[in-house]
């Protein structure tokens, strides 16, 4: 079967600086991939490349066999940016109805995603008056409303309490179970074991591309922070 993501020798230059350098990886459909690495390592740029909003210097980026950003992919790839990008002066349901129409999703999809992110009691609330965690869930719901085949989430767990974080991972696991491909970025290493596959990034390069248990075994570590440090020390030294 065609891989969900194929990236080959990707190079991205922003403001004269190489932000992503010779990155290659392939992801099969229905995988939950964690993109981990410190702030500024190129995670967001790599994600913007996948959704087709980033100008690329060189290399190949394909989703489901189509070049990233192709018109045919636009209804199938959901993108949740780090800062919630929704209309703060509209209600939750007004936001979702608008994006549902743009994505060509049925009206019933709005109620479904409001339910999925547990915002039922806030459906009529103006988004600007919600808390940070609620705002993040509206932004997620906006990406889910089109039932995308792939979902790209940039630091979705930032600012969520442990309970909401657990609910979010449960929701993401459900999505993977029905065949959705997920790319989730985080700078928190302890979220790594929720993923089926880890991409560790540092300074624009991919340090490791392994399932979590393989990464731990390979580095002889018991936690992902140590694994990350071991990898960097091995490289530099």
């Amino acid at each position: 079967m065609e891989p969900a993501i194929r990236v080959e020798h990707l190079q991205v230059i922003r403001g004269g600086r190489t932000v992503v350098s010779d990155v290659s990886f392939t992801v099969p459909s229905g995988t939950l991939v964690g993109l981990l690495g410190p702030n500024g390592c190129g995670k967001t740029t790599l994600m913007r490349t996948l959704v087709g909003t980033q100008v690329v210097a060189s290399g190949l980026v394909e989703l489901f066999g189509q070049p990233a950003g192709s018109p045919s992919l636009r209804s199938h790839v959901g993108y949740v940016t780090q800062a919630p990008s929704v209309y703060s002066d509209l209600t939750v349901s007004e936001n979702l109805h608008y994006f549902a129409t743009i994505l060509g999703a049925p009206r019933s999809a709005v109620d479904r995603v409001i339910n999925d992110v547990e915002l039922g009691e806030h459906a009529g609330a103006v988004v600007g008056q919600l808390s940070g965690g609620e705002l993040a869930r509206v932004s997620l719901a906006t990406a889910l409303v089109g039932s995308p085949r792939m979902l790209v989430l940039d630091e979705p767990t930032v600012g969520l309490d442990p309970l909401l974080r657990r609910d979010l991972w449960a929701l993401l696991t459900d999505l993977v179970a029905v065949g959705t491909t997920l790319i989730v970025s985080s700078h928190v290493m302890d979220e790594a074991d929720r993923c089926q596959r880890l991409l560790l990034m540092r300074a624009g390069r991919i340090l490791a591309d392994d399932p979590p248990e393989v990464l731990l075994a390979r580095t002889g570590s018991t936690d992902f922070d140590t694994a990350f440090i071991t990898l960097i020390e091995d490289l530099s030294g």
Partner: protein
Amino acid sequence: MTLRRTGATARRVLRQLRHDPRTVALLLAVPAVLMGLLAWILHGRDGDFNRFGPPLLGIFPLIVMFLVTSVATLRERTSGTLERLLTMPLAKAEFVMGYALAFGFAAVIQALVVSGLSFGLYGLHVSGSAWLVVVVAVVDALLGTALGLSLSALASTEFQAVQFMPAFILPQLLLCGIIIPRSQLPAALNWLSDVLPMSYAVGATQQLSTSATVTSEFLLDIGVVTMFVIAALLLGAATLRRRTR
């Protein structure tokens, strides 16, 4: 371009306005109060209100819509909603037309209120049709919206966006023929005024002030303003980028 996504975008922009009643009140009240003020200032000066009133009836909405659209579009850019929309199956033309429709609708209401008060209460009189004055006011407001959509691409902050009003609109106000007729401007400025849209917007209302019938000059003026609206909307769509650096 589909009507569905264009219409949804227009409805969404109007819903945003509805959640902001103070802005709606300002949109309707500011031009109406300004026209009242003008009528009062020129009270008893024979014919002056009928000379200055009609062009300003078009220019006030143009300025207001220019500012509102500039800020609204800039907000879409800085909040990330525009980037999100452009990863979705929304055509750039659908986005731009959605805004034009929404603010065009607001402009119709605004023009009806301001014209109704000007002709009914403030005693404005034109030789031509008062309805055509309303039409010109709406086209002028659309021009403001279209210019706001395209020029906001040049602004990266709100500070810059609001300064585009004095930078792009005030020179046109000086050159459009209200202060002195365009034919009496120094030659170079006369040529410059020939390529500025507000010259034709004001020209159209001046035709309505003085001629009882629809003149070919009026049709030419309103045609030129419409062409500027279309060109600015196309430019606005062209400045939207799905991919950025």
